[in-house]
């Protein structure tokens, strides 16, 4: 089965004063092209850590300990994928926000309070679509110079030449980087001895490469002269306005000049979405994008994500603890518990039949339309992951726990077609 992104035995730890928090305990998930993939579980189950690891934006003191995160974006790498755990930071910067981007929960704190909306969305364009923007601006200026439109002609010519120079040096950089990346990935895929040092050397070279020529770098900082880029900002601004309008934000020309605190929660969330969508990502990760919004806005945001999924984005990973949203939005879903994937299946399968006691408990604790009697909650809370339970991490809360559960971590098996579960109920010899 082909995949778009795949994690293999991913382990992420947080090194805190209290001890090492083993947040991910060997997570295997796979996102297929064209699907909406759900991750559910209680708070503190490692859903967010999983997706942050996928983008390698786990913040201090967290660290990806081991495992593989393979991307299958490029046709050439279909076989093996690109393991992003091994890639350089510079490579990740090119990837983040461009191929994979992320929508965060709590839009109000995810936006920087001291920068305007234009500046914050504009950065995405600056980082990943600079060539395109520069080319467009230069063409516009060319047309204006030819027509002899009113304005200070000398300044326009200077602007044009400088932007063209920036474009040239940036394109050259892009090409060089691409070549280098291809080289690195080719070297990595052939497991020859001595390759590691060659890869390290190339990665170092990659980190050291500067996106612009020296003269451009200097000019970009000289006061007054650096205003040649104002024209570029204007181009980017029109693109931002367009993007915001397509996201259904009212009055986008006005909104771009605002600061985050001046916007409502729903608008802030749309801005966060706009930042993520600026570069048409292949994979969008939505980390509980509707928590802290009121119900009508939630519905709007969910509709928006569904529409975007149909139109522009290839795959979506959707994190939530709302099973209703999962049923409505996702194709496949994984249930996570305390850093382990408990069960993975297509949405309709998992609602029809749950194999893992945790999934069973989750679904039993949601009120049904024909609810009779009391809801059955899962007793206890998510364990402290500094000292996680041994064996299956769910066993202290599990109603069907056996002796083996506290000793051995269960294997993941395919219990039904496309339905995976990790539980001793189905693997161990002495069934209860």
């Amino acid at each position, binding site marked *: 089965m082909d995949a778009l992104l795949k994690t293999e035995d991913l382990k992420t730890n947080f090194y805190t004063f209290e001890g090492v928090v083993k947040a991910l305990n060997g997570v295997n998930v796979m996102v297929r092209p064209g699907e909406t993939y759900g991750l559910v579980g209680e708070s503190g189950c490692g859903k967010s850590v999983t997706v942050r690891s996928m983008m390698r934006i786990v913040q201090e003191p967290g660290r990806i300990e081991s495992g593989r995160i393979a991307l299958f974006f490029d046709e050439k790498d279909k076989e093996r994928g690109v393991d992003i755990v091994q890639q350089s930071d510079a490579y990740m910067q090119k990837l983040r926000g461009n191929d994979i981007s992320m929508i*965060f929960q709590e839009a109000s*704190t995810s936006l920087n309070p001291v920068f305007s909306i234009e500046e914050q969305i504009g950065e995405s364009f600056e980082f990943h679509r600079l060539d395109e923007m520069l080319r467009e601006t230069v063409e516009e200026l060319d047309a204006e110079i030819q027509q002899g439109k009113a304005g200070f002609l000398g300044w326009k010519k200077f602007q044009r030449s400088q932007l063209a120079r920036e474009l040239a040096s940036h394109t050259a950089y892009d090409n060089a980087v691409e070549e280098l990346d291809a080289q690195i990935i080719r070297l990595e895929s052939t497991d020859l001895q001595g390759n590691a040092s060659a890869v390290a050397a190339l990665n170092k070279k990659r980190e050291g490469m500067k996106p612009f020529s020296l003269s451009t770098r200097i000019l970009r900082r000289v006061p007054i002269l650096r205003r040649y880029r104002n024209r570029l900002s204007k181009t980017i601004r029109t693109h931002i306005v367009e993007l915001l309008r397509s996201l259904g934000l009212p009055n986008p020309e006005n909104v771009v000049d605002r600061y985050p605190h001046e916007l409502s929660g729903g608008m802030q969330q749309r801005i966060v979405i706009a930042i993520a969508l600026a570069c048409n990502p292949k994979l969008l990760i939505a980390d509980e994008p509707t928590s802290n919004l009121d119900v009508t806005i939630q519905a709007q945001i969910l509709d928006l994500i569904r529409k975007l999924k149909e139109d522009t984005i290839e795959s979506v990973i959707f994190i939530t603890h709302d099973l209703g949203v999962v049923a409505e939005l996702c194709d496949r879903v994984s249930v996570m518990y305390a850093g382990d994937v408990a069960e993975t299946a297509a949405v309709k399968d998992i609602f029809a039949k749950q194999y893992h006691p945790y999934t069973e408990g989750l679904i039993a604790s949601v009120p049904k339309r024909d609810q009779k009697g009391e809801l059955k909650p899962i007793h206890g809370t998510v364990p402290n992951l500094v000292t996680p339970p041994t064996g299956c991490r769910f066993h202290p809360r599990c109603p069907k726990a056996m002796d083996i559960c506290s000793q051995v971590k269960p294997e993941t098996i395919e219990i039904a077609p496309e339905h995976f579960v990790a539980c001793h109920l189905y693997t161990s010899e002495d069934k209860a």
Partner: protein
Amino acid sequence: MVLILVGVTVIVFSIMMLLPPGQRVSVYVQDERVNNQQLEALIEKYGLDDPAPVQYWRWIKGVFRGDFGYSVVAVTPVIEAFKNYFPVTLELVLIATPLIIMTGVWLGTKAATNKDTAIDHGTRIFAIVGYSLPTFWLGLMLLMVFYGLFGLFPPGVLSNEGRDVLYSGDFQRYTRLLLIDSILNWRWDMFWDALYHLILPAFNLVLLSSAMILRLTRSSMLDSLGQDYIRTALAKGASKNLIERKHARRNALIPVITVSGLLFAGLMAGMVITETIFNRPGIGLWMADAALRLDVSAIMFNVLFLSGVYVVMNLVVDVLYAYVDPRIRLS
């Protein structure tokens, strides 16, 4: 703001009033050999025996006329003395403040972005040392080592040759700030001379005061580096360098601005020690002398001036706030 200034004058005036008239009259005595009768006459003449409010009223009336009285220490009217002394102080403060802020912010950022590494520990040791050392001790040590041992960076404002030029009459004193005047006169030798004498006192101030800015920058940088918007910037594809320089620091500088404003005012007030040690005839040295010789007019004026500086700097800080933090901006 005006109320604060009036309050300050009332308090200081009351303190000065605690001195008996017989001591305060000494200011007006030119000759050592005066008898009690003459003293009584002087007290009568200047109204030093009047009730305190009457004396205060007399003084404040003078203030509004621009008459601050006569400074015995400077042997000129207070205003004239201020014009002489203040540029010396201002020059040092203007040189030192940006250096202090830049050093503090730079080291604080470095410490925060390299948390728990050798760089971080190093800057923290520097900060604690800077916090704890008294100005006079470090100043004296610096003088002892650099001037005493190596003969570098002498105290004072100018070398002997420089002073000759200054009083020769050819040297026009446009702003009374030596550095600027020497450029305006196109006397680069004077410029270097003045700068040479500024290095050690400025260095002294930087060592001591940047510690405060450093610690503040470090903690607020750490705070903003842990915020959610840093993660958003990371997810956008921003480089680590850009995140530190732009996203985190802009937010971290907000508290630093408050302290910087007060630092400027605080340096002016703290000049009493620095100028005494480095023998620079600025308002600090003047104030120290005035305090020792009960020069009431000079003390009152300087207190009023320094509280004025504090008030103005608070205003400047408020304006800067609005510039950096859009949440405070008035719509």
